[in-house]
């Protein structure tokens, strides 16, 4: 590892906190909407995993791309998608990110490099190789960031994507958000090894297992990986240890969790951790509370706006099938 990079300026860390607050409160609003049955289908929330997506996306540059899963609200927002149009998509509005055609599992904002949220496990890992291939082919130094979960490391596409990325030295950064569960199954029930990160060895790929609840650690690690990728030194596999505070999806009360597990993780809530760091660095409690309140307000306003938008026109369903 190169010498540790200069410490991240406070302003920047405060911006991370803002982003994490917005995601948290966005997800809390989604939780309410689905609980109230305002929205059809299902949703997969990421409260507790905000430090991974914010820390990672803040390590990227314009032009870099990001792909993620159905549990992608946080990642897409972290990459820069607007709150209101993201809500709009989940509400199925014409003004939603995808015109209401994608929905909660497919939030996409190509304009900000949020290239897509994919809902078939493993399906987007090879696609992330493709966006990385494009930069390599063109000789640019853009990197491809790819989020997926612990359970996704058992599907074939994971293996093929990791191998291709390694043998072609593609500038892709695979970030596995290990939140301990795949649906209702603890990862240990479906996977014979403890440290998923070691699967990188099957591809001689650079790897790092990190605290996914520490935004600064995630940021530093992804920055290093991006540096390697831009320098032509190929992909990195990062295992970020984290936890989802809610159930797998709208319909999951998560009763399978051992007593005390959630509570223990709540004490390591990534937002609390970052607030603590900032407080220790001298940021006033009032400023921190103000930031939180302001974010919650911004999210509430965005949702209010989105709710007012129109549904897509009937003809819209026949558009965008072909170019």
């Amino acid at each position, binding site marked *: 590892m190169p010498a540790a990079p200069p410490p991240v300026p406070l302003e920047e860390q405060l911006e991370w906190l803002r982003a994490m607050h917005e995601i948290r409160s966005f997800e809390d609003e989604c939780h309410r909407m689905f609980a109230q049955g305002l929205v059809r*289908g299902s949703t997969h929330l990421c409260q507790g995993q905000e430090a991974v997506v914010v820390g990672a996306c803040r390590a990227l540059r314009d032009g870099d791309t990001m792909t993620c899963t159905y549990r992608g609200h946080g990642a897409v927002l972290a990459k820069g998608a607007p709150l209101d149009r993201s809500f709009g998509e989940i509400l199925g509005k014409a003004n939603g990110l995808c015109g209401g055609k994608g929905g909660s599992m497919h939030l996409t904002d190509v304009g900000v490099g949020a290239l897509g949220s994919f809902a078939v496990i493993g*399906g987007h890992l090879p696609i992330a190789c493709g966006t990385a291939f494009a930069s390599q082919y063109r000789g640019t130094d853009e990197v491809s960031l790819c989020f997926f979960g612990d359970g996704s490391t058992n599907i074939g596409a994971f293996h093929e994507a990791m191998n291709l990325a390694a043998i072609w030295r593609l500038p892709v950064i695979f970030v596995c958000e290990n939140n301990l569960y795949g649906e209702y199954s603890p990862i240990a029930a479906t996977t014979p090894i403890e440290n998923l990160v070691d699967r990188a060895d099957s591809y001689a790929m650079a790897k790092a297992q990190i605290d996914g609840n520490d935004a600064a650690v995630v940021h530093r690690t992804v920055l290093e990986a991006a540096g390697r990728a831009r320098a032509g030194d190929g992909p990195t596999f990062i295992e970020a240890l984290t936890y989802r505070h809610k159930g797998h999806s709208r319909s999951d009360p998560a009763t399978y969790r051992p007593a005390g597990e959630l509570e223990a993780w709540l004490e390591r809530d990534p937002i609390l951790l970052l607030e603590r760091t900032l407080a220790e660095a001298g940021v006033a409690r009032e400023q921190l509370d103000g930031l939180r309140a302001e974010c919650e307000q911004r999210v509430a306003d965005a949702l209010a706006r989105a709710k007012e938008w129109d549904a897509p026109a009937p003809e819209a369903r*026949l558009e965008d099938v072909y170019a």
Partner: protein
Amino acid sequence: MSETITYREAITRAMADEMESDDSVCLFGEDVGAAGGVFKATEGLYERFGARRVRDTPISEQAIIGTAIGAAAMGLRPLAEIMFADFAAVCFDGIANQLAKYRYMTGGQVSLPVTIRLANGAGSGFGAQHSQPVENWFLNHPGLKIVVPATPADAYALLRAAVRDPDPVLYFEHKSLFNVKGELRDSAPPAELGKAEIVRPGSAVTLVATQLMRHRAVEAADLLAAEDISVEVIDPRTLVPFDEATVFASVERTNRLVVAQEASAAGSWGATLVSRVVAERFESLDAPAAIVGGDEAPIAYAAPLEDLWLPSAERIADTVRRTVAY
């Protein structure tokens, strides 16, 4: 004696009854064990039959299907769950190239009594990758049987038949029907695969539909009855084998055919049926055989768009009116 149960309960009960009567029946898939399945269709089976017979798998559909094939070749009767039917795409080789052809390629040296359960269809706001009517993906793959129940009674009797069948069966459970209630006779026997049901006799037109569309076809028939249009609704219940005789006989009486299906027309069972009726009962047709189906587009998320994509009872009725008026 009979009892009112849901489509979901009928599925669970069919599995329980087959597992009870035959130790070679085993069940595996993602979260089918203690969790009772994502659609809660396997609830209670783990508690009742234990970890040997009911197993959770990793997120590895290729491994699930391959394991079912190998186990069946050795004489077991695996029930494999693929959750959302759309995920058949990640194990398509296992189903289409291995399961469908293994017996044939070996000159009949193996029998493969595999039952694959898949949650099928649109109408629940799950978006383009979790809503497809997947049954059509497998029509051009001889060697597979395809079962598409619409009612609790059929779900029960056909699933038991699927498990007992010596061949691979794809058993599609429609997501929009899990909570539909219906009567189930006590000790109802397994069904016979390949027998259609005349859901509602009629004289003016033959309306063929499965799963969610069967229910909308009946709704449409009710609407049309008020207009003195007598519609014969037929549910084939299995697409392979397909009970052509029952449809042909009906068309001989009604001289008109409409197919109501969830999927778009290209490469669908509806288009196949129309081509068969034209080939075998050309003279019986007094009007163009019509297909009411989804648009030639993926399934959109927004409720109003998805609802428009899915044929409604009203759209079905319109097509029937046009066909009868022809």
